[in-house]
């Protein structure tokens, strides 16, 4: 199909035999909500490093259960609104326990929120063994395109940190 179709093949294995999927989530028409997508885009050129595949996910969250099928470890990057400085990165490990309750009971506006999708996958035995969620604090979620300046400035260093996590998940 058209040239911009995202990579759909399964990630090839890294040196340890593990595969890691990095998924950026968001909506490009709601300003900083696109932070996760922009981070994934920043990492796209780095995809292809052994065992790491980067994807952008703009649809409803239950589609993630198909997205991560057969993958051992997944890193999810989404925008967050918590009142801390825009551009701040927060890391949560959802591998064993649900991500914190106040995160779960958020007003995520999709029919099924990210944390619910993770818990549903866990209940059905469809969750990768390792799940790390990164939240990027946004400033503005109004209708419109383009990230706030401070969020945009944070993307490149945050992308390095997310990539570091992916490497660690492969070698662990």
């Amino acid at each position, binding site marked *: 199909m058209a040239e911009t179709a995202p990579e759909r093949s399964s990630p090839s294995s890294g040196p340890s035999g593990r595969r890691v999927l990095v998924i950026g989530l968001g*909506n490009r028409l709601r300003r900083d909500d696109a932070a996760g997508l922009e981070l994934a885009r920043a990492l796209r050129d780095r995809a292809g490093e052994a065992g790491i595949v980067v994807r952008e996910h703009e649809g409803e969250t239950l589609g993630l259960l198909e997205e991560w099928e057969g993958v051992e470890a997944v890193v999810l990057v989404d925008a967050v609104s918590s009142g801390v400085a825009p551009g701040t990165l927060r890391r949560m490990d959802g591998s064993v326990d649900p991500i914190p309750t106040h995160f779960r009971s958020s007003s995520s*506006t999709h*029919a099924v929120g990210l944390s619910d999708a993770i818990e549903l996958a866990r209940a059905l035995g469809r969750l990768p063994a390792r799940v790390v969620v990164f939240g990027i604090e946004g400033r503005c979620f109004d209708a419109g395109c383009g990230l706030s300046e401070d969020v945009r400035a944070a993307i490149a260093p945050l992308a390095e940190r997310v990539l570091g996590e992916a490497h660690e998940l492969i070698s662990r």
Partner: protein
Amino acid sequence: MSEGRRTRVIRTDYLARVEGEGAMYVRLDGREVVDVKLRIYEPPRFFEALLRGRAFTEAPDITARICGICPIAYQMSAVRAMEDACGVKIDEGPLRDLRRLIYCGEWIESHSLHVYMLHAPDFLGYPGALEMARDHREIVEQGLRMKKAGNALMTVVGGREVHPINVRVGGFYRAPSAAQLRSLQDPLERARETALQTVRWAATLPFPDVECAPEHVALSDPGRYPIDLGRIHSDRGLDIAPSGFDEHFVEEHVEHSNALHARIRERGSYLTGPLARYALCSQALRPLALEAAREAGLGPVCRNPFQSIIVRAVELVQACDEALALIAAYEEPDAPAVEITPRHAVGHGATEAPRGMIYHRYEIDEEGTILDARIVPPTSQNQLVIEEDLRAVVERGLDLSDEELSLRCEQAIRNHDPCISCATHFLELTVDRGRDGA
């Protein structure tokens, strides 16, 4: 205030299992319902402004991003409107068949999500799909399998399942091969079987005794169940081409919602979506779907909005069966698209999104630049009927506790699968001192 005149307020500031952002407010004075409001936080008309000044060829891709659940509905309405403006008709032939096919994929995907994940918990008594999965794993697994079949169809025809990139004004960038489509037959046959079981299962659910009689509005496509084109008609005599939309429908701002409310001029509220399509077009269902509807006990019109889950299941059978027929008959088109030359004109397009009719109108100049855009999504059309349903539900449920009544009201809203467009993913955190904080 005497006990009999006690004021009760039922409100939900966040509606779970509704696509988008919304809230509900119901005020009772004694046993009298004095106020019912569905508040929708829809960024007002942002997309229409975004479209002005862009090329007419960009409309399908831009509008696809309005909704993560029904991108095809936006794309198909946009391409129909642009082709109408340019004086081109794709009303028959393999390109139209491909459009119906990808639209079937969206119906399967969207209805599966709603029937199994969002609506079923209301009837089985769970707060959501997650809690339901612990006791009814098979229902959730069925939903995921059905959704996957729809996604596969959208991926093969559309290039990818969310925001398909293969749709363009005039047709497609590339037509799928017959072999690619044949690969979808097995999963679609299984999905059709699951859909038939789902109709039977849905018919056994407990439904509150509610009857509503809105004016039903749907497209009419002689001999076919409406999906991708047709005249706009209603069960109170409306029968117009999409170009007559403005003459017969009006959208108004109301104070409590920043979404526009649509009404039929001089008559008022109306309903679009599965219940309206079924009421107006059930005779055009494929025999398998019609038989399933009859076996489930549905008459020619379904007036209980809670039973919309049965009608959606019937439409799942319809979409799977139609997709299989289109695949069986598919021959690759000579060209994936017809060439379109822009001209200064206004074009109209109306199609049937899973949750109801959607109307687009564009004015473009001779270069094809968009001068004006108007998009009327299903939920803004259904909003008044949803409020009327809420009123009916409250009036019949006065003896329920506030908690029970609140839940019943939320269910009444979910009956219509409202999609409050331009949703965000962002997670609102009011406390951020968690144990795993970085």
